[in-house]
C-alpha cells in the first residue's frame, strides 16, 4: 500500500534553445500536497504542464499508478486513455477559471459534464451530485442554472474546483489557485481546499509564487529557478531554514503583515 502515486524522473522541456524546465525528478504519495514555488519564468508552470501531459516533454518520464495498481508511463498511453485519465482520476485547476470552465453553460452543467464524461447518464443523479458539490464549495443552490460569467472571481474559482473534484480524482494539479483573488476570498478558498484535500485524501501539486499559500497548503515544497529545482524538502524546513541562497532571498522577501 505504501507506494507513490506519481513518479517523475529527469523531466525536461525545451522551447527550441530555451530551457523551460530541466531534469526535474520527484515522487508524490497519496494524500500528499507538493508546492512548487519560484518567481515568474522559473519553469514551474512548464513543469506542471509537462507532468500533467498538457505539454510533451523533451526528455524524462512520468509514471502513474492507476486505480488497479498498475504503473503506466503516461506518455506511452493512447490519446484516448490519457484523456480518460485526465477526466476521471486527475483534475486541473487553472489560475484563470475561464480556462477551466465553460463560461456559456450553467454552473450545474459545468459540474455535471465531468460526470457525463465518465458515463453517468441519469439526469436526476447528475443534478443531485451537482447540487451537492456546489454546496460543498459554498455556492448557493439557487445559482445552479446561472452561467459562470455571472459569478464573481472567487465563485468561479470554487466552481472550477467543484467541476474538478466531482469525479473523485486521486490527483489534482493546481496552477496559482488563489492568484488574482482578494485576501479574504483567498483565505476562504485556502480553508476549503485544505478541508477537501484532507477529507478526500487527495494528492496535489500546487504551483504558486505565494510562499504563505505554500506553507498553509503543502507538506513538501520544491523551489525552482531558471528551470531547475534548487531546493526540495519539508515545507516548514525549507521556509524556516532555507539552504540555497536563492531560497533565502525568496523567504526574506515575504511581506509581513
Amino acid at each position: 500500500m505504501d507506494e507513490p502515486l506519481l513518479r517523475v524522473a529527469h523531466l525536461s522541456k525545451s522551447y527550441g534553445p530555451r530551457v523551460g524546465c530541466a531534469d526535474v525528478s520527484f515522487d508524490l504519495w497519496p494524500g500528499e500536497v507538493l508546492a512548487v514555488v519560484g518567481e515568474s519564468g522559473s519553469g514551474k508552470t512548464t513543469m506542471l504542464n509537462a507532468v500533467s501531459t498538457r505539454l510533451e516533454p523533451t526528455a524524462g518520464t512520468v509514471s502513474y499508478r492507476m486505480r488497479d495498481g498498475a504503473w503506466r508511463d503516461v506518455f506511452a498511453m493512447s490519446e484516448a486513455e490519457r484523456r480518460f485519465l485526465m477526466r476521471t482520476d486527475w483534475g486541473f485547476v487553472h489560475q484563470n477559471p475561464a480556462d477551466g470552465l465553460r463560461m456559456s453553460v450553467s454552473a450545474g452543467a459545468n459540474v455535471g459534464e465531468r460526470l457525463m464524461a465518465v458515463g453517468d447518464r441519469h439526469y436526476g443523479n447528475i443534478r443531485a451530485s451537482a447540487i451537492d458539490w456546489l454546496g460543498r464549495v459554498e455556492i448557493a443552490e439557487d445559482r445552479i442554472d446561472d452561467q459562470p460569467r455571472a459569478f464573481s472571481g472567487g465563485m468561479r474559482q470554487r466552481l472550477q474546483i467543484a467541476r474538478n473534484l466531482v469525479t473523485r480524482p486521486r490527483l489534482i494539479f493546481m496552477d496559482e489557485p488563489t492568484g488574482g483573488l482578494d485576501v479574504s476570498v483567498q483565505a476562504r478558498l485556502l480553508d476549503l481546499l485544505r478541508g477537501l484535500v484532507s477529507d478526500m485524501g487527495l494528492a496535489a501539486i500546487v504551483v504558486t509564487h505565494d510562499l504563505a499559500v505554500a506553507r498553509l497548503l503543502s507538506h513538501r515544497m520544491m523551489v525552482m529557478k531558471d528551470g531547475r529545482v534548487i531546493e526540495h524538502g519539508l515545507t516548514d524546513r525549507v521556509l524556516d531554514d532555507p539552504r540555497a541562497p536563492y531560497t533565502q532571498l525568496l523567504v526574506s522577501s515575504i511581506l509581513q503583515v
Partner: protein
Amino acid sequence: MLYGNYAVDAGSIRLAHQGATIDLATATPREILAVRRDTLGYVSQFLRVVPRVAALDVVAEPLTARGVSNDEAREKAAALLARLNLPERLWHLPPATFSGGEQQRVNIARGFITDHPVLLLDEPTASLDAANRTVVIDMIAQKKRQGVAMLGIFHDTDVRDAVADRLIDVTSFAPRQAA
C-alpha cells in the same frame, strides 16, 4: 532541529517511532511527517494557521489528522480550552485576532490534545498569567504521569522548578563558535 524544521549539518537525533529507531537528521520529509503525526508533538511559540479557521477547529486538527471523528475531536478541544480558561465566546472565532496569552493557550491545547509519546515545549508559559501558568503546570504533570517524555524551554524559573526532572544549561553551547 528536533522537530525537523531546521536541517542538521552533523550529528544525529534518534527517536523511537512505531517500534523502530529513526534518525531525524537523515529522515526523509515523508518520515518526518509520520513522526510528527504519531510520535512527536510540539507546542510552538508561534501560531501559524489557516486564516478564518475557528480556534476550536485549530485545536481539534491534530486529532482529525489522525483519523478521529470531527465531533469527538471538537469535544476534546472544547474540554481543553475550558480547562485553560479561554472564554467560550472566543472558541468559534479565528485566533488571529486573539491576544498573546489567548493565542498561546490555543497553541498549548493544540499540542496537548493528542497522546504523542514525546512532546516538545517552546516556552509554553511565557505569556500566561499566574492562574493559567498553574493550569499548564498541572497539565505537564499529568502528561508526565502518562509516561510522556517532554523537552521544554523555560525562561520562567518557577515553572521550570515545578516541572523539570533534569536541566540542560545551554548558555555554554555557543553554536557559532562550535561551528
